[in-house]
């Protein structure tokens, strides 16, 4: 019973980091979504120059460990603007995720049959209109399963902002472990918490996927 009591007290403290973890993940996913969709559009519909810019971004960022990108951007951001570690860390994580999301959305955009674009242009839509109201809505739904996978990866990678001092789950856990001198229980509690979080996320994303699946 003693161990259970310990575990509960520990969890109580770590859970205060839960919201920060969730927010880091959400901000990073949204930033990554913007970068990902924009660069995917550049790669599929852009001219040669934009296509190359977007490709270099995706290829280079995906070849470098996320933690290295977080370090670089954290120091670059700190040089020019005064952002909190939370924002700087989330932005950096989002910038990294954008490269992976770029691949996902590029695949999805290319999976929308070319006839859709032709048909949209034939009824008088401009290219931008066709992309915005015909191709993109379908592509986003096609991208859902892969995007959900990326979302759980970002959730797990959000522990990496710990290195720039964001008080998320892992940093909280370290604080508990230093105070109680019971690292096994502290990290055990953190693992349980994460396990719950990823299982919940997968369930939710599964539901979203079923809800918005396209029958093609």
């Amino acid at each position, binding site marked *: 019973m003693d161990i259970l009591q310990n575990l509960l007290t520990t969890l109580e403290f770590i859970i205060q980091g839960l919201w920060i973890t969730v927010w880091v993940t959400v901000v990073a996913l949204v930033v990554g979504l913007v970068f990902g969709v924009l660069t995917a559009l550049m790669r599929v519909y852009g001219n040669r120059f934009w296509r190359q810019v977007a490709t270099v971004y995706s290829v*280079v960022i995906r*070849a*470098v*460990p*996320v*933690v*290295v*990108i977080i*370090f*670089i951007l954290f*120091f*670059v951001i700190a*040089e020019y603007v005064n952002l909190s570690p939370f924002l700087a860390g989330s932005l950096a994580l989002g910038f990294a995720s954008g490269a992976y999301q770029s691949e996902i959305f590029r695949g999805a955009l290319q999976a929308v049959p070319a006839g859709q674009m032709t048909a949209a242009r034939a009824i008088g839509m401009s290219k931008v209109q066709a992309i915005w109201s015909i191709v993109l809505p379908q592509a986003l739904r096609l991208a859902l399963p892969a995007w959900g996978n990326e979302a759980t990866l970002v959730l*797990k*990678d*959000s*522990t*990496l902002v*710990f*290195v720039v001092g964001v008080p998320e*789950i*892992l940093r909280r*856990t*370290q604080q508990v*472990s230093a105070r109680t001198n*019971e*690292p*096994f*229980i*502290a*990290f*055990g509690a*953190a*693992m349980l918490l*994460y*396990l719950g979080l*990823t*299982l919940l996320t997968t369930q939710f994303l599964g539901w979203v996927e079923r809800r918005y699946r396209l029958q093609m």
Partner: protein
Amino acid sequence: MQEFLELLGNVVPSLLQGTVVTLQLAAVSLALGVAIGLPAGLGRVYGPRWLQRVIGVYITVFQGTPLLIQLFMVYYGLPDVGITFSRFAAAYLTLGLNSGAYQAEYLRGALQSVGEGQMTAARAIGMSKGQAIRSIILPQALRLVLPTWSNEAIAMLKYTAVVFLIAVPDLMGQAKIMAAKYFAPIAIYMIVAVFYLVLVGIAYLILRQVERRAQIPGLTGEVE
């Protein structure tokens, strides 16, 4: 420019040392991952119900929690209950167990995509189940799993970058020391990014060759 070249001259020797450690970590962890993932994948598909369940729990835990927490659990948590590892042992073990969980899942996918008729046919000509798996199913599954597996190998090169947080002197660990020594974090982490870029690039080219060699000729999709 002069300044940058000087910095480069100062940090590259240490970063190269770190690169050796990173490559070593990736290679050993991958090998450990295969040693764990292969039996785990087979057990997940062909084992008795209880074994399938145990392996399922192993995979869920290691795929459902962040690598960094797993690493801290092994290095800081386990000594608390009397199991102590050195830095390197903790790094190898965590990366190996983590990779093993993913590799087991990939192998399961490959095993299941080998058509069921193959097993039936092997049994019909008198092979035991073990024989059929070893000489009919597994050789095909291993070739099918190779492309996914080579992605995992490249990912492993990148995953190793977190072990500097338990003070293993890998590429990233050396970078951190150099950044503090020369007060030039941005330049040094950029150089490190280029190092990783080159490592991943080379690994990609090598693995693509291997994949091409091992491809099952003319095969697309399911093996019937």
